[in-house]
């Protein structure tokens, strides 16, 4: 059985990729992900804003109250070589890339143009086989138009593509008026893959404290619907590869995503919930399902239920909504 797949130009032994954010925080864990059978690892995101903030905070806190009182002109020993900035991230990327055979993909969330370019280059130098742009941005400013947001995405992709030679993926959110056109624009801008969709920061309310609670919950299988829909629509229409992420809890979701047209399927929640070795379970599950249903290769499955290949392509479109509701009648009565 042939499980191999191609994802933004990389040959992978199978389509299951670990994007397990906290789990990719150490070389040991990345090694375990490889041992458990992950085809590739997408590292946790390097947040430019966080780095800038951390650096500014450290600087501020180390100098707060200094040069004010004769007996305590400062409060901390002089340290010259503390590493703020991307050094820790890059070091981890470097060590992980050297320690494993599977490709490591760096993930980047920038805020400035120079940040996107500089950090992407540094990741490439550190051994990243690809870079995933985790464009994570809420246009809360009511004067920002949809067009501006779209141009921002496209601009970032163009800038990074021009700066690095490794393939570049874009992790998208689903909140565009026309995802298809957005996907096309990114494809045209040179994106080597689109990853659908990132889970947006959606805060909760803590009713005891009457505060906004920034908690992140693990995804559930019903969350696959939205990415499934759009992968199915986009499959076969773009040059870029398609990555599916969200809601993968078992091999069932892996199969569904592949049939919709994903080149790889990424999982975070399942590994956090069930442990790193669960990646093997997903892998076996995929294999078993394929055996049972007599599929011989992932290639064969890929996109087999995409919009272009199903019997009723309108099933994917919203116009069909009313029809779905009326289908209790039966076609022939």
């Amino acid at each position: 059985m042939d499980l191999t797949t191609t994802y933004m130009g990389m040959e992978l032994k199978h389509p299951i990729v670990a994007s397990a954010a906290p789990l990719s925080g150490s070389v040991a864990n990345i090694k375990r992900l490889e041992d458990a059978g992950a085809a590739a690892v997408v590292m946790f995101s390097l947040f430019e804003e966080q780095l800038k903030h951390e650096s500014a905070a450290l600087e501020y806190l180390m100098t707060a109250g200094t040069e004010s009182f004769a007996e305590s002109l400062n409060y901390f020993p002089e340290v010259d070589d503390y590493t703020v900035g991307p050094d820790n991230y890059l070091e981890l990327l470097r060590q992980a890339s050297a320690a494993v055979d599977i490709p490591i993909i760096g993930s980047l969330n920038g805020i400035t143009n120079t940040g996107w370019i500089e950090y992407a280059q540094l990741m490439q130098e550190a051994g990243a086989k690809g870079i995933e742009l985790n464009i994570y941005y809420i246009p809360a400013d009511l004067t920002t138009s949809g067009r501006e947001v779209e141009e921002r995405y496209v601009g970032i992709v163009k800038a990074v593509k021009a700066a690095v030679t490794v393939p570049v993926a874009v992790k998208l959110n689903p909140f565009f008026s026309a995802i298809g056109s957005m996907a096309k624009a990114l494809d045209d801008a040179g994106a080597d893959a689109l990853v659908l969709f990132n889970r947006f920061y959606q805060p909760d309310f803590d009713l005891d404290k009457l505060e906004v609670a920034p908690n992140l919950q693990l995804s559930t299988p019903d969350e696959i619907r939205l990415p499934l829909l759009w992968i199915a629509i986009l499959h076969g229409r773009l040059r870029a590869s398609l990555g599916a992420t969200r809601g993968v809890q078992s091999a069932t979701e892996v199969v569904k995503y592949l049939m919709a047209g994903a080149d790889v399927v990424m999982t975070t929640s399942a590994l956090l919930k069930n442990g790193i070795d669960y990646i093997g379970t997903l892998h076996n599950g995929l294999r078993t399902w394929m055996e049972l249903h007599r599929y011989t290769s992932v290639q064969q499955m890929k996109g087999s239920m995409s919009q272009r290949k199903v019997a009723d392509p309108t099933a994917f479109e919203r116009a069909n909504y009313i029809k779905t509701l009326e289908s209790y009648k039966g076609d022939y009565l």
Partner: protein
Amino acid sequence: MILMGSGQETACETAAYLNARGEKVGVLQVRLYQPLSASHFLAALPASVKSIAVLERTKEPGATGEPMYLEVISTLVEAQIEGTLPTSVMPRVIGGRYGLSSKEFTPAMCKAVFDELRKDKPKNHFTVGIVDDVTHTSLDVDANFMIESDKVVRAMFYGLGADGTVGANKNSIKIIGDDPDFYAQGYFVYDSKKSGSQTVSHLRFGPEPIRSPYLVQSANFIGCHQFNFLNRGDVLKNAAPGAVFLLNTSPHEPEEIWERIPRPVQEEIIAKKLKVYGINAEKVARDNGMGTRINTIMQTCFFAISGVLPRDKAIEKIKYSIKKSYMRKGEEVVRKNFEAVDNTLVNLREIPVSAQATSTIELPPTVSANAPEFVRNVTAMMMAGRGDELPVSALPVDGTYPSATTQWEKRNISNFVPVWEPNVCIQCGNCSMVCPHGVIRSKFYNESSLESAPKAFRTAPIDARGFPDIRYTLQVYLEDCTGCGLCVEVCPAKSKEQTGRKAINMALKEPVLEDEKANIRFFETLPEMDRGRVDFSTVRGVQFLPPLFEFSGACAGCGETPYVKLLSQLFGDRLLVANATGCSSIYGGNLPTTPWSVNSEGRGPAWSNSLFEDNAEFGLGFRLTADKHLEYATELLKALAGSIGEDLVDDLINAEQTTEIDIRRQRGRVAELKQRLQEIADPRAKQLLAVVDQLVRRSVWIVGGDGWAYDIGSSGVDHVLASGRDVNVLVMDTEVYSNTGGQMSKSTPMGAVAKFAAAGKQIGKKDIALQAISYGNVYVARIALGANPQQTLLAFREAEAYRGPSLILAYSHCIAHGINMQRGLDQQHLAVECGHWPLFRYNPMVHESNENPFVLDSGRPKIPLKNYAYNEVRYKVLAHTNPKEAAYLMDTAQQGINRRWSVYEDMAARSGDTFQPKYKP
């Protein structure tokens, strides 16, 4: 003149100046003293010497002279006896002292000494630099005698500690000093406050080595980095005629500044023909994304207009220096700073000076006219930076110093202050409890009192049933607020309509200032709470006790002062405090003002600071003295019982003095006794009057930080706890030497970075609580106000009520932790949650009935240590410098916490008879 040490260079410089003008004076510099080599000394003494002044910076009480004076005299006399004297006749020798209280030693003072030597009968055992109008030892000094060279640029800068002025000046010295054509010198004067402190930088730059180790006397450049300093003291006092004056005009624009400069300052500018430049530095800083840091901007102005270096070269050097310091932080930061420099040059303006003073603004008085005489005449001088001008007679004769003086200082250091929302408030008292500066006060009063209230006075019905006529007010003393925001953080009440608003919110001060000043005046007319009606056992109740520790100069958001303040609220009227050296002795007792205060009856804490190492013993001495006085008073009472009255004597001697009501009653009896004693002719009545106040139980507290209790005064603390006497030791544990800038103490926890533990402390924190508990008869509590204020309150009251030694370990967040001080209480909470700081009380009184005396007041650790620790730079910095070691130390510290917790849990679960028995007489 013969002298050694710090005054030598000034003396040499002055002698050279005078000799060049025809005088015949000289300086003999002593470099090795005791053994003083007579032969070398005599060889160095010119044969022409007629008179000698020996100057020293020491006072040898009771001796016939100071040490070197005596050495010189005996050397000369021996030489004369032996015939080795280099001079033809025995020179006249006088001794004198300079630099007293670290006062300046200037060329003018040197000249005064030389002038004195020329007199027929020079003053021996003189002083110079002070105005001694009591024993008349001081020499007159001509303040106008200055020898500053015009080849030297002499610059003075007035700044705030927080605005980066000193840092920028140190940087300027580096920049100019690096130039081979220049010599540079800098000295920085700080005031005694840790928040809102003023700094004065004295810089000299010149083509020759600079030998002027005294402050700039006559400046040809003055930089005033805060506009409101013009109102506070005379910043132009040292300006030389024709000097350049650079003013940060914020919040105003330079174009409109002239009319805003107070008239006397304008007059000085005109009289001295100063060239004035202005810039709205805060605006330039803000526009360039630099927040409130105006240092680069003001430094650029100095380089642009001081003329030390050619302007273009100077700017180029500043940019080079910026690049060097900020390279590591990325091109972006460098670019931003470059832009700030360029924009500074664009926004710097020369201010046209009118021929006559045109301003209608007068200088405000330093203190209110309502202040006591001492404050008006003495304290105010120090506040205005003129303390050195005070004569000896201005100071109290017996070493005691008036307290309750911070209230007159009105430092106005924060532009943002808390504003109370009566409708949202639940009157819990938390904000008042945590306020480090005692600026939040509460009173309840009958609504009829409101008749004369100002319109803007805020009030609410008291949140208690059965008191329909009683109103409640929470008054913020906003001129004394440092803007730390702890009150807002701790406030549990939220507006129903807008959850972001609490019952107390930070707001701009300026719009509410005048109304609130009127409100405060009115608030102060409302009656002080009857201590008998206040519930001492709850945070809610304690808010009504006026703090007798207020408006200190501690850091904004200090974690220690709320404990000190609480102490003063609970026991202030009968409190004796022995304070170890450290932050608390600085904010507690530094001049010019004293935060320890008095209540409406004029009673307040007696406070003193001895040394670092002996504070526990010092405080034990307070106890022994109080006990001895009480014993003597009791003896006299018994002896005079017949004339005083048996019943009163009996009540006085056997009074139960535990609760506040008990204390109030005893005060009543003492007042009665005083009256009766007036009528008794027996001379012993007078003796009893001298000690009669000791019949009210004294509350002795020995206070300090961990540097004292864990380290330098450790054996004393142990010794005093083991004495069994009724003293209370309060350790405000910041886990580091805070006052001296963050050195490691034995309280510093494993993994934290401190000076002397730059690679992270490898040894865990000493558990002095367990040490004390091992005695069995010591009350021990570990508390954290931010985690459980009710437990804090309980511990203070239990410790005081226990008639033996008590030890309270109080978690105190600190600027040396590298935290956002506004979140200090959150960190306290997390310290408890993670088990780093478990709360407990060990109460020997409970053990008397054989119950378990050890009570754990906090639950099992809920979060890992790192969730608390990595919010603080002291831990985090190691994770950046040495992540591997940081991880190892964090892991080991976590294991330590787990194990210690199991020990505590075991102790809390044991039966009472497993603890040390207590001696019972």
